[in-house]
């Protein structure tokens, strides 16, 4: 695990997010702590409603009423600059403006909803640059062409003048990625970026994100429910369940030898090779009577990963092969 603070790009400590509804307060995120090392890819996995997207939105300060960050700190460490404590910034603070798009940027599941239908894609990417950098439009356009070429859009000079509806789903996701990375952010948050795409297109987009990440050294927070995507893309993984992290470690540790009963269930429920034609284990059948509701604080397991289990159970586990 990453522990050296200087090398982290993001540190979240004790984050709580709550939504006030008519039926009482919903605690969407409860005491979430994690760090992302510089240049690392961290995956946040869990089922819908587990709080993974809310965690990501908190980093961008995009939680809207009736939601509220009720506790904890989120700190971003830009390279060679002062750390920015995200949740202490006021609503009009210029650093907040800087945070969105320049320090951290985000790509979403549906590329079409992230693009304006009435502006050309060239103008939209230019806007991202001109908002954050002192530059003439002509100069920005050169950058745009370069970036579109990098994300694999053929003939970028010409396609710059086209509108989002003239592109396919996979191409639109490439454009959104270009827009997100053109300002060279410290951290890229990818919220289910391939869920809406076909499996062959998904493979292309995953390869693109991986290549760009290698080339630009961007750190990535990857939000997904697909364990296959986690295994192929991430270095570290945190498994979320009902708003808290139940297990966190390297991808190999967690996916190869899950410790927490919930992680075990989540992995077992994926239809796989061995189980063909048999009954699929479900999370409840794997978890059984084990108590996974009590929020035990994350403690280091034998191989250094963090697990939310009672201390005596962790001690019993012994060394798990990593």
């Amino acid at each position, binding site marked *: 695990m990453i522990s050296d603070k200087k090398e982290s790009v993001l540190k979240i400590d004790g984050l709580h997010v709550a939504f006030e509804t008519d039926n009482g307060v919903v605690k969407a995120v409860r005491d979430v702590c994690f760090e992302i090392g510089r240049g690392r890819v961290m995956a946040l996995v869990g089922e819908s409603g587990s709080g993974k997207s809310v965690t990501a939105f908190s980093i961008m300060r995009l939680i809207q009423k009736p939601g509220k960050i009720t506790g904890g700190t989120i700190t971003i460490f830009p390279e060679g600059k002062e750390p920015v404590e995200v949740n202490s910034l006021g609503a009009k603070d210029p650093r907040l403006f800087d945070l969105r798009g320049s320090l951290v940027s985000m790509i979403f599941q549906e590329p079409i909803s992230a693009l304006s239908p009435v502006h050309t894609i060239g103008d939209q990417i230019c806007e991202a640059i001109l908002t954050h950098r002192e530059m003439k439009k002509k100069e920005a356009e050169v950058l745009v062409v370069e970036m579109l070429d990098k994300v694999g859009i053929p003939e970028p000079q010409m396609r710059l003048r086209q509108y989002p509806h003239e592109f396919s789903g996979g*191409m639109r996701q490439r454009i959104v990625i270009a827009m997100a990375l053109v300002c060279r952010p410290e951290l890229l948050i990818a919220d289910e970026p391939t869920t809406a795409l076909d*499996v062959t297109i998904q493979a292309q987009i995953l390869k693109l994100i991986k290549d760009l990440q290698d080339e630009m050294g961007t750190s990535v927070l990857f939000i997904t429910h697909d364990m296959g995507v986690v295994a192929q893309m991430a270095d570290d993984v945190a498994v979320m369940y009902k708003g808290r992290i139940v297990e966190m470690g390297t991808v190999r540790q967690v996916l190869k030898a899950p410790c927490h009963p919930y992680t075990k269930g989540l992995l077992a429920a994926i*239809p796989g*090779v061995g189980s063909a034609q048999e009954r699929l284990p479900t999370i409840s059948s794997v978890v059984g009577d084990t108590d996974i509701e009590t929020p035990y604080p994350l403690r280091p397991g034998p191989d250094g990963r963090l697990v939310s289990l009672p201390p005596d159970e962790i001690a019993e586990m012994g060394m798990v092969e990593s």
Partner: protein
Amino acid sequence: MSEDFSKYPAFIHDSFPAEEGGQDDLSKPLLRVRDLRKFFPVYGQGVVRKKINEVRAVDDVSFDLYRGETLGLVGESGSGKTTCARVILRALDATAGSVHFDSEVLGEVDLVQMNGKQLKLLRREMQMIFQDPFSSLNPRMTVGDIIGEPMLIHRLASGKALEKIVTELLEKVGLKSEHRERYPHAFSGGQRQRIGIARALIMNPSLIVADEAVSALDVSVQAQVINLLQDLQEEFHLTTIFVAHDLSVVRHICNRVAVMYQGKLVEIGPTESIFEKPQHPYTRRLLASIPSPDPDVKLNFSEAVVESV
């Protein structure tokens, strides 16, 4: 994609009636689809809206569906798999071809040639389960009314008798009898999908078309619904066409798999031979694109990735 897979011929594996699936007469298929076509016209911009082109959504598709088996229909979006399933059920009219269905009431019939009256009779024997558990249930009807409606339409049961049937079915799909009075909004996605399944089963159909029936669900709920479908399949002796894009789900529940690409069937065969020995280059590309949840099995990007246009 720059590579055009349609130039390769379709590959048909040595097909045999599924061993595990068939409890009934294996020799006679329930459904024989022959040279099925569905073309959608593309009209010009002018006042007369002249037909200028056509989209070949389903292009000469032929296959047999045996009793008791589950056939997976896979392909990317736009490959024509859903259109194909809809044309078979006559939710859409075919442009050409035939769909021979071995009906209990009418004997062997060509679904493409049936008129409205005959179709209504046949609808009892073929039902559909939809992808979106939210838009496929009427929000203004109670669950009991939704599940019982097919019985009312076909005048097969009403009143207390219907209530009894609905209650039994609710329990079969893992819901409770008191759920009858509630509205769809009170249920989770997985529960709604169970309601959709109950509605499809109330007519005791022989053919079920499940169009992406589990793809909107979380993995653990998905596992529950898959298990339910498999149990019901055994109990009701269902023959199923399972339209899906998630290949690991297809591998788990289907006896045979048919792969579609640009409206054409490019490969069909028993599940294991499709997954173990894919012959058509498109099938190989499709299988190579699935990211494995095992970090030691690396996604082979060079095999999977084709540069798009």
